């Protein structure tokens, strides 16, 4: 195995419509590292993650996954993605097992389901502690259990890198504990993790490094900030969007 970073973002810029959202972001996740991406609402953290997985086009800069340029990266089974969602359900009932099985498609896009696929799905469901509910409809689950299903789906391909967008949003305490211990096991097995968080919460002990975004720029890259909660983050300074004058923004645009 080489020592190159699993994620390497250099000078990434991106815009939603005419509004610049990322303005030169550098972000590295090394093998086995757990990196938290923090920042206030609108700081660009979700956009950064969505750019890394190719959902948002860059207007400049480069992104590499496992040393391969993102556009040429095809080995999606190495990446487990948990999108920012509050539900795993859609318009038709589906069991936990059915939803988690979708995660195997990155290993085998077309073709029969193998015994190995089935075993990996059961293992992923077990990891999030939902084995006894595998045959239940996801619509019967609580918010935290939905999030556990989404994480099991990402784990089904046995990924080397987990990318999670706000996995703790709307999650009850019991599920937060289970998610934290699931992640701990994955990290102990050498999985690299990039996760977007609003606040460090119960995951704090797992996090090696925190990257804080503000207005689409990295303002902190190092040990997790001491104080908990988004109110303590550099990106959160109680400036209301309609308040006049944002000196930081005008300074960086030029």
């Amino acid at each position: 195995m080489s020592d190159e970073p699993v994620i390497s973002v250099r000078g990434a810029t991106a815009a939603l419509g005419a509004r610049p959202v990322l303005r030169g972001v550098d972000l590295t996740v090394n093998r086995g590292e757990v990196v938290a991406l923090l920042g206030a609402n609108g700081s660009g953290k979700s956009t950064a993650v969505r750019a890394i997985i190719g959902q948002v086009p860059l207007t400049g800069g480069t992104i590499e996954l496992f040393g391969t340029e993102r556009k040429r990266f095809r080995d999606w089974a190495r990446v487990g993605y948990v999108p920012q969602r509050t539900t795993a359900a859609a318009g038709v009932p589906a069991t936990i097992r059915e939803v988690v099985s979708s995660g195997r498609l990155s290993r085998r896009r077309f073709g029969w389901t193998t015994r190995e696929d089935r075993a990996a799905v059961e293992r992923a469901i077990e990891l999030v502690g939902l084995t006894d509910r595998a045959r239940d409809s996801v619509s019967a689950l609580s918010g935290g259990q939905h999030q556990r299903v989404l994480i099991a789906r990402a784990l089904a391909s046995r990924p080397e890198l987990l990318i999670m967008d706000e996995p703790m949003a709307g999650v009850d305490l019991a599920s937060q504990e289970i998610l934290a211990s699931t992640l701990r096991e994955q990290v102990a097995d050498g999985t690299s993790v990039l996760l977007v968080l609003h606040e460090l919460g119960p995951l704090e002990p797992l996090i090696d490094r925190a990257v804080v975004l503000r207005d689409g720029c990295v303002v902190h890259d190092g040990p997790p900030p001491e104080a908990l909660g988004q109110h303590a983050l550099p990106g959160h300074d109680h400036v209301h969007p309609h308040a006049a004058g944002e000196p930081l923004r005008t300074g960086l645009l030029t």
Partner: protein
Amino acid sequence: MDFLEPAFMQRALLAAVLVGITAPAVGIYLVQRRQALMGDGIGHVAMTGVGLGFLLNSSPVWMATLVAVAGSVAMELIRAYGKTRGDLALALLFYGGMAGGVLLINLSPTGSNANLSSYLFGSLSTVSTEDVTAISVLAAFVVLVTVGLRKQLFAVSQDEEFARVTGLPVRALNLLIAVTAAVTVTVAMRVVGLLLVSALMVVPVAAAQQLSKSFRATFVLAVATGITVTLAGTVTSYYQDVPPGATIVLYAIGIFIVLTLLATPLAKRRARAAEAATRDCDAQVPATRRPTDDVKV
């Protein structure tokens, strides 16, 4: 069983079974994506195809297929790339398609509003041998896609963003669903009619999910419901001289009501069981739920 005697009834029943299978088989993916009314839109667009078929003196079924496929691809592209006013673009497409159909059929020397009405509401006696051949070929395509690619279509319809990150060709699969839905509309056109096609795509699925917990069970139950109501509706319309499309749809809604009534005590029992299972372990904080983040037109 004297309804099996006339040749036109044999053709009609064969067409009905094929419709009963294909419409819910595609409809389940549309319902899953919360695009339950897309079939209705395609039905409207297909009317222009029927009109064109009469005007050019070619087969209305094949013309309708052609136009409906083009229309559904346009709708999918509007959905994928359209930003805010996608709903208006779709409305233009729907009404344009319907108006075009009425205009074209009145321009053609052989067509009339009476002809058009057999396509709008379905008509058994006019299902020709040629129609049956076309319907069989199209139905085979629909079954091949909806069953053969069920894992892929399920993933794309369940969570499009996640599906993209698995490396699935999401855009191609979305277009495939759209095209398959269009083909189904034209398969069903002769039996239930263009205006009620969408009902047969959606109502059996809605009925099935009253009882089912899994996607697989919903699929099987919806298709079973589809076959039951299309056959029952066709036979009824033979004896009672009522339009088959309307009869089929009302049967389907009847099954929906019956299954909903059956499901209520079942749901209560399941809720009690779930409550009993969780009572002794984790007291749960009710999760906050944001509005669904994938509203689609």
